[in-house]
C-alpha cells in the first residue's frame, strides 16, 4: 500500500540567512483560483490609489538668480550639473544633489538667451541680447566623477590617496566659498542680438540663432557658415542628437526649417499658423521632432513628411515656451506660459502629468535629466525647480522585492487602465484655478466650433464642406 506523504528535504527549506524568505509553494491550477480577475482588478485599483497618495513630484527649488530664468543647459556628461541663465545676464552652474550654486559665469551685459554645453561637458557656450557669444570652460566636477578610469592604472594606485585628500580639500573649499567665479575662455561678437544657441552632439560645432543662423567652431571668432532666410529672425535652434549634421530652427515668421549643415540651404520648411517657440528632436528616433507652438499645442513631425503633424499634443492653455525630450525618447516635458509644466508621451495626444506650484510663474525653460528620472524647470520667478519625472516614484535604493512589487503594481494598473474606475482615478489631476477655467473655456469654444462645423456639414451638399484634421489644421503648407 502506498501512503502519500509530504517529503521535504532540509536543504531546500533551510534559509541561508535569517532574513531570507521562506519558500512558499503555489499550486498554479487556475481552477483553484477562480477569482483572479477580480483580485487583480482590486489590486490595480489599490495601486492607482496608492499612486495618487504617493504622488509628490516636487523635490526642491534652486534659488539664487535675481531675474527670471531664460534658459538652461544640462551637462551631457555629468548628471548632477545643470546650467541656468537669467534675464540679467547671470549664468550659474548648479549642483542638483545639493541644490546649490557651484559656479557663476559673469560677463553678459543683457539677457542671456541661449546656453549649451558641448557633449564632453567641458565647454559652455552662452549667447545673449548683447550680441556676444561667450565660451566658458566648465569647472571639473568634484570627487565622484573625476576621470579616474582614463588615467593610468598604476598611477591610480599610487596617487589615489593623494587625490582623495586633494579632492576632499577642493570639496571643502567649494563648500566654504560656496562657488567659483569663472572667466570666459573666448568672446565672439556678432552684429545682431542672439536668441538661441545649441551644440552639436559629439562634434566641434555649435549654432547660434538670431537675425540669421550661424554655425560656429569653438576655435574661430567668425561663424563657419551662415544661413539666412527671410527677414524674420530665427528664434530657436536645436541639433539632432542622432544625426549630428542636421538641425532644426524655428523663426519669427512661423516657419520651422530643417537644415543640413553640410548643405548651403534649408532642406525643409513648414509654414504654420503660429510661431514655434522651441523644437526638440527625439533622441531615440532621429527623424522625429516635436515643436512647441505658441497656440498651446505641441506638434510632432516626421522630418520626411511635413505636410501633416504625426501627433498633436494638446493640454496647455497658453503658449508652450520650451520643450525637452526624455533621453528614453518615450516622453517629453514642456513648460508653458500658463505657469505649468507638463509631461507628454511621445505618441499621446494628452499629457500624463501636470506640475504646478502656487509660486511658480511663467515657465521659460524645461529640461529632462539625462537619466530620465528628473525634470527641471526654470521660471519667471527666478527659481529653478526640480521635479520627479514620475510623481509617485520611490527614490533611493530599492530592494529587488520592492522593485518587483512596484513593477507588478504598474503592470496591473496598466492592464486595467481602461476600466472606468481606475481610469478616473489615474486621470484625475488637481489644476490651478486659472488653468482649470481656461481649459473649460477653451473646451466650450472648441465644442461650439465643432458643433457648428457638424451642422454646416449636415446642411450642405455632401463633400462641399471638408473638416480638416487636427494634424493639418494649424499647418499652412510645406514650403516647396
Amino acid at each position, binding site marked *: 500500500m502506498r501512503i502519500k506523504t509530504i517529503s521535504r528535504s532540509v536543504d531546500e527549506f533551510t534559509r541561508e540567512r535569517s532574513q531570507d524568505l521562506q519558500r512558499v509553494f503555489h499550486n498554479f491550477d487556475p481552477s483553484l483560483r477562480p477569482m483572479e480577475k477580480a483580485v487583480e482588478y482590486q489590486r490595480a485599483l489599490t495601486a492607482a490609489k496608492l499612486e495618487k497618495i504617493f504622488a509628490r513630484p516636487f523635490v526642491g527649488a534652486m534659488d539664487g538668480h535675481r531675474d527670471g530664468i531664460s534658459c538652461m543647459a544640462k551637462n551631457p556628461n555629468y548628471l548632477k550639473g545643470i546650467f541656468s541663465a537669467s534675464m540679467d545676464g547671470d549664468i550659474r552652474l548648479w549642483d542638483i544633489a545639493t541644490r546649490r550654486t557651484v559656479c557663476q559665469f559673469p560677463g553678459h551685459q543683457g539677457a542671456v538667451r541661449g546656453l549649451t554645453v558641448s557633449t564632453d561637458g567641458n565647454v559652455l557656450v552662452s549667447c545673449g541680447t548683447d550680441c556676444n557669444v561667450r565660451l566658458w570652460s566648465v569647472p571639473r566636477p568634484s570627487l565622484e566623477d573625476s576621470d579616474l578610469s582614463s588615467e593610468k592604472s598604476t598611477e591610480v594606485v599610487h596617487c589615489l590617496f593623494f587625490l582623495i585628500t586633494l579632492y576632499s580639500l577642493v570639496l571643502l573649499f567649494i563648500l566654504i566659498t560656496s562657488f567659483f567665479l569663472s572667466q570666459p575662455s573666448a568672446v565672439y561678437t556678432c552684429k545682431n542680438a542672439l536668441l538661441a544657441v545649441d551644440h552639436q552632439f559629439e562634434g566641434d560645432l555649435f549654432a547660434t540663432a538670431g537675425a540669421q543662423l550661424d554655425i560656429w567652431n569653438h576655435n574661430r571668432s567668425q561663424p563657419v557658415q551662415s544661413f539666412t532666410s527671410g527677414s524674420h529672425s530665427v528664434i530657436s535652434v536645436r541639433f539632432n542628437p542622432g544625426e549630428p549634421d542636421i538641425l532644426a530652427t524655428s523663426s519669427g515668421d512661423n516657419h520651422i526649417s530643417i537644415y543640413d549643415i553640410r548643405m548651403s540651404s534649408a532642406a525643409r520648411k513648414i509654414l504654420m499658423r503660429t510661431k514655434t517657440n522651441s523644437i526638440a528632436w527625439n533622441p531615440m528616433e532621429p527623424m522625429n521632432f516635436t515643436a512647441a507652438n505658441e497656440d498651446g499645442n505641441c506638434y510632432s513631425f516626421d522630418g520626411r513628411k511635413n505636410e501633416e503633424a504625426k501627433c498633436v499634443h494638446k493640454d496647455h492653455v497658453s503658449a508652450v515656451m520650451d520643450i525637452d525630450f526624455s533621453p528614453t525618447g518615450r516622453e517629453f516635458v514642456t513648460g508653458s506660459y500658463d505657469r505649468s509644466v507638463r509631461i507628454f508621451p511621445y505618441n499621446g495626444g494628452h499629457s500624463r502629468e501636470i506640475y504646478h506650484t502656487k509660486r511658480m510663474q511663467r515657465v521659460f525653460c524645461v529640461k529632462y535629466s539625462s537619466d530620465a528620472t528628473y525634470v527641471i524647470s526654470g521660471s519667471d520667478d527666478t527659481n529653478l525647480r526640480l521635479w520627479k519625472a514620475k510623481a509617485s516614484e520611490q527614490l533611493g535604493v530599492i530592494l529587488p522585492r520592492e522593485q*518587483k512589487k512596484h513593477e507588478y503594481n504598474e503592470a496591473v494598473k496598466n492592464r*486595467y487602465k481602461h476600466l472606468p474606475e481606475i481610469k478616473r482615478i489615474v486621470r484625475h489631476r488637481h489644476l490651478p484655478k486659472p488653468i482649470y477655467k481656461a481649459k473649460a473655456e477653451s473646451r466650450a469654444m472648441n465644442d461650439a466650433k465643432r458643433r457648428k462645423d457638424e451642422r454646416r456639414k449636415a446642411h450642405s451638399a455632401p463633400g462641399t464642406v471638408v473638416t480638416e484634421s487636427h494634424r493639418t489644421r494649424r499647418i499652412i503648407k510645406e514650403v516647396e
Partner: protein
Amino acid sequence: MGGLKRKPSSSAKALAKSKKKKGPHLPNSILKVIANQKRPLNSDEEDDDDVIGSDDEHGGDLYEYEEGVPEEESRKNNRYDRHDNYDYELPDDFEDENVESEDDDDGGNSDNDEAEGDDDDDDDRHTRMLQSLTGMPSAAFEGESKSKPVLFTEAYPEGEFNPTRDVLEGKNVLTEEDFLAPLEGTPGYQKTSKQIARMRKDTKHVVHAPLPKPQRERLERKAVIGLVDEEFSKWVHLVKKNREAPTVYFNQDVDLGYSTVGAIASEFQPRTEFEKKMASVLNDSEVSMEDHIKDHNHIAKMRSLLFRHEFKSKRIKKIKSKTYHRLKNKDLKNSSLGALMDPEMAKEEAMRQEAKRVEERMTLKHRNTGKWAKRMISRGLNVKYDGPKAAIAEQLQMNANLSRKMNSMRDGSSSDESDDEEELNDGADEDTPSRLIAKAKEKTLKALEDDEVPNAGLMSLPFMKNEEANEEAKRALEEYEEWENSGGENSKKTVNVSGRRVFGATAKVEAPKESRKDSDNFYDDSDSDNDMAGIEDNNIEPVRDNASPARNTITETEKFDDDVAGNPASKTTFDVAMFASGSWKKMAGSKNTESKKASRKTRAPIPQAQDKKGWRDEESEDSESEAEQMVDGVLTSTSKETFEVPSQAELINRAFAGDDVLDEFEKDKEEVLNQEVPKPEKPVLVPGWGDWTNIQKKRGISKQMVQKHEAEKKEWEQGLKTRKDARLKHVIISEKVDKKAEKLHTTTLPFPFTSKEVFEHSMRMPIGPEFNPSTIVGELNRPEVVKKTGVIIKPVKFEEVNPNDEVDDEHPRNHQKQRPKKKTSRRQGKVKSK
C-alpha cells in the same frame, strides 16, 4: 429670399439696377475722371475689393456708399444653387442710355470693354488734332501715346557709361554687328566675324543668367531634401524595432571602472629595466601557464595519492595479527586480480575451481547439512539474527554456484529464453500429446528448480516451504511418468535436466502460486462479470478436483497454460484455443464433457457461476460459429437469442426514462424569467386593512390598486416579450446585469483595440505572482522602459538592423553581473528586445 433661388434673368437685372441706384452717388463727371485716372494702373482681373482699395488710395476724400454683396452672389454657405451669373448678358452692340453713369464697382466685363472703347475714341480724336496742327503722320503720335509710362528709378546721372532710357526700354541696344560694322574691310574682319558666328551657334559654353533667387532656392531645397530624407530613412528599421520591442532597456552600460586589484594589475606595463627583464622571463618561458598549472595539479594529485597509500600501508603494517596477514595474502592470491594478471595463474585457478565443483557435487558440504547449520535451523537462530541467516544463505548460494552445470554458469535467464523459443516452436508445429506432456514436465521441474534461487534467502526456511505445493509438484511429476509409461506413446524421456536439478527439501513452489489459487477461488465465488475469469475457472477447477497436481501446476502461471494448450486430453483454455485454432473443433467434444463433469464436482459451487458454466457449455456445443466467435477472442456474454437492435429514439427513451428534461427546463426557464422580470403581485384584500371594522361596507380592492396592477402586468408582459429568448423555446438568455461584474467591463471599446475579443483577451490571463510561476512573473510584469536612476542615457547610435530578424524573446534582467559582454555593452541606445 430662400425661395427665390431662380428668377427670370430680366427681373434680376432690373432688381440689381434698382438696388444700385439706392445709395448716394457722385456726379457722373467726377466719376469719369476717377475712372480715367485709375484705368491704366488697374488690370482687368482685379475684383471689387481691390477696386475699392485703390479708390481709397487715389481719392480718400471721395465718399461712396458701399453696397453689400447680395447673399446669392457671395455664395456663402452654398445655400444657393450654383449659378455663374445671374445678370443678364448684354449683347455687344447694346447701347445703354445712361453711359455716363458708371457702375465700375460692379466690374462687369462688358462695361470695362465699353470704357476702353471710350478711351480709344478719345485717343483718336487727340491724334487727329495733333496731326492737323503739326502736319506729321499719325503713326508718330500713336507710338508715343501707346508707349507705357516708364518709371525712372535710376539714381545715377545719364551719361555715356550708364545705360540710357532707350536701353532700359529695350530699344537701340548695341549688337555685335554695330561694333563690327566700322571694321569691315580691315584684314582681321573675316576671322572675327567667323568667330562671332561660331560663338553664336555654340550654346554649350554660354553662361546663362542666374535664376531668380526664390526659384534657385527652391531647386536647392529640393536637392537637399533628397539627401536629408535619405539620412532619416536609414533609421527606420532601428526605430521600428525600438518601438515594437515590448521593453526597451537603458540600464545596460554601467562602467564602474576597475573593481579589483587584479583588474588593475592586468594593465600593468613593464617600464624599468628590471621589470622588463622579469616580464621577459615570465612571458617567454617555454612552458605556458596552462601547461604549468596542469602539471602542477597532476603532481599534487599523485603526491596526495602516494601519501595516502603510505599512510594506509603504515597502518596495516602496524597490525600484529598473523591471521590477518595470512588472510590478506590469501585474499590477494585468490583474487581474480591475480588471475587476470597471469595466464598460468588463471589456469591454476580454473583447475582449482573445477576440483571444488567436483568436491561439492560429491559432498553435502554446503547444503545446510552441517552441524552448525542444523543447529542454527533447529533453534531458529537463523531467523532471529542476521549473521547466521546470511551465512546460511551464503552457503546455499555457494552450493548453487558450484553445482551448476559447467556451461550454464550464467544465470537462468538465458535458459529461459531458449525455452521461450521452444514454446514458440511448439505453438507452430503439430502438437503431439506426449511431447506436450514432456514439456509440461520439464516446466514443472524447472519451476521446482527455479525455486532454488530464492531458497538462499527467507524462502529457504522450513516453515516457508510449502509442503503441499511441493507434494503437488511431485505428484504432477509422478503423473507425468505414469502417463508416459501407460497410455502415452513411448515417448522417450525428453527431459533434459540441467545440472541444477535438485530434488529435495529445498525445492518448493513459489508463493505466487498460492495467491493465484486464492484468486481462483475468489473468482469462483464471485458473480464475476469477467467472463475470462469464469472460463478460467471452468478449466482450473476440474484440474484441481481431479487431483492431478501436474495440471494444477500448469495453471500456476499463464505461461504454462500456453504450453499445455495442445494437449487434447487435458482441459484447454481459451488462450490455447487461440493458439491452436486448427485443433479446436476436434477438442471441443471431449473438453466439454469433461468440463461438465468437473463443474459438478466443484467444492463450493455457486449457482450463478454454475449456471453460467452450464450455459456456456451448451452454447459451445450448439454451433461452431459460436465457438469461432469465442476463438476470435471476443468472448462476450452476448446471448444466443435473436436480438433486435432498438432504434436510436427508443434507446434514448429507455436511457432517460426516469427524468423529464423538457419539463425541468421549462420550470427552470420560468424561474429565471420570474427572477429577471418578476411577475407583479395581485392585489389582495387583507382583512382589517383599508376599512372600518363593521361600520363601513366592504368595498373590495380599490380601483387605484387594480389599475396599478394592470399597468404593472402590462409592463411585465412587455418585458417578457422584449426579451431575447421570448421566441426561443429551448433557450434561456439571461439579461441579468451583475453590478459587481459590471465594474470589470467598459462601456465602449478603448482606443488601441479594434475588437472586443482582443480587448478581453488582453485581460484574461492573470499576471500576479500567485497565479504564475516565479520564472515568468518578471517577464509578465516588465515595464516598457527599464532604466536606472543615475545612469546617463545617451542618444541612439546608428547600427545595421536586419529587418527580417525576429524579435528574440529572452533578455537578461537589469543586473550588471548578468550583462552579456559581447553585444549589449557597447551601446546604450541599442534596444535589447525582450
